[in-house]
């Protein structure tokens, strides 16, 4: 079961997720990157079966790329991207739902503002300052509730994320040794750290 969470700070947003790819009693890999980069200034942490995770995140990111190509390089704001994503989840819901739960973070380069969205597989969406998907929420929301405040800088936001990771590693039944952490700010999407290199094969 995947752990995905996000924390917004002043000037950016962090998205983090575990790197396990497992099914039933077997672990396929421990270096999976579940934070899909959608566009130059947005990314989404996705949890769910690997098939849907990959299929849906590629579907969204390719559609966003098509938009930019079709419109002279014009970019969709994170708000628009999140609503588009939610719309796709909603349309698929009564046909063949995507079983993905998402934390979508982005930086709006026109308004100069970061934003974070919580989306689930039933196409619910909420704009949040911090959030988590999956079992991680049971362990981490209380930490974020206590430590998050307005005007954090990147270091402080990362510190909160690392606190959450430690909590999971101590208390969560399923061993998740590796986590990947990405930050999105005015300079784009940047991988801050990972437990295992996703490029290693």
């Amino acid at each position: 079961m995947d752990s995905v969470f996000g924390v917004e700070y002043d000037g950016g947003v962090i998205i983090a997720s575990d790197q396990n790819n497992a099914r039933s009693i077997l672990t396929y890999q421990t270096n999976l990157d579940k934070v899909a980069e959608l566009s130059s200034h947005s990314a989404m942490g996705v949890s769910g079966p690997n098939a849907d995770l990959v299929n849906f995140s590629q579907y969204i990111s390719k559609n966003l790329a098509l938009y930019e190509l079709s419109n002279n390089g014009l970019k969709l704001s994170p708000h628009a991207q999140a609503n588009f994503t939610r719309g796709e989840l909603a349309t698929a819901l009564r046909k063949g739902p995507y079983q993905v739960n998402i934390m979508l973070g982005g930086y709006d380069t026109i308004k100069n503002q970061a934003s974070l969205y919580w989306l689930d597989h039933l196409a619910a969406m909420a704009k949040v300052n911090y959030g988590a998907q999956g079992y991680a929420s049971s362990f981490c929301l209380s930490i974020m509730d206590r430590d998050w405040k307005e005007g954090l800088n990147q270091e402080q936001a990362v510190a909160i994320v690392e606190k959450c990771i430690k909590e999971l590693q101590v208390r969560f039944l399923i061993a998740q040794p590796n986590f990947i952490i990405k930050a999105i700010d005015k300079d784009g999407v940047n991988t801050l750290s990972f437990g295992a290199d996703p490029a290693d094969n």
Partner: protein
Amino acid sequence: MARRYDSSTTTFSPEGRLHQVEYAIEAINNAGTCIGILAKDGIVMASEKRVTSGLLAPSKSSEKTYKISQHVACNVAGLTADANILIDQARLRAGRYEYQYCEPIPVEQLVELVCNYKQAYTQYGGLRPFGVAFLFAGYDEHYGFQLYQSDPSGNYSGWKATVIGSNNQAGKSLLKNEYGSSSSSEEEEEEKEGEMKVEGAATEEISMPDVKGALRLAVKVLNKTMDASASSSEKMELYVMSLENGQVVHKILNKEEAQKVIDEVEAEATPAGET
């Protein structure tokens, strides 16, 4: 000439022309004039109201200016019945975009969608083209205020100032001289023919008029293109798009406000004498 090739939209003439499309464009040259002017702080669209009969009931809505969405409006020149179809299409596409993205559609994208719809009638189906030309005025966060003109061929371009409808050539040449220069007889800057895309207003700050100046210029041009000697607020419709508290505001001037602008233009003209 080439009579054999002009009854079908789906046939090129030997000279490589689509006569049906050209005839559609001709139809608009008989329609009431519409002028669009881009200003620093908004857009002005002025149109000639053609009252065909005194028995006509006073219209509750405009026959020239239409709101497409909160941030886009348009002026029509040509067959009103044709225009209604396209306006419905424009409103639908603007609405659909907002449904999908929860954001207003970038103005150029909307114009292109309407134009692509028009283009289909110049290529397939054997149906005649739409006999309408539009002036689209809109605001978005990417490029600010923008003015676009589109015609039956499905072509569109961005303008700083332009005219469609009857006597549009006279209107355009007057705009070419007057737009961007001060209203008194100073050195007039030569403005490039406005076929270029309208970029952010920043580069044109010096020569771009404000809404008030644009209104006066529009009325001046309308006076020239309308055959009637006396201009009155009944014969023209003045529309202004501007920003108030970050929200786009659409306004059609009422009788008193329109008359005020007309009087201001008259006052300017008389002491300076005829140019």
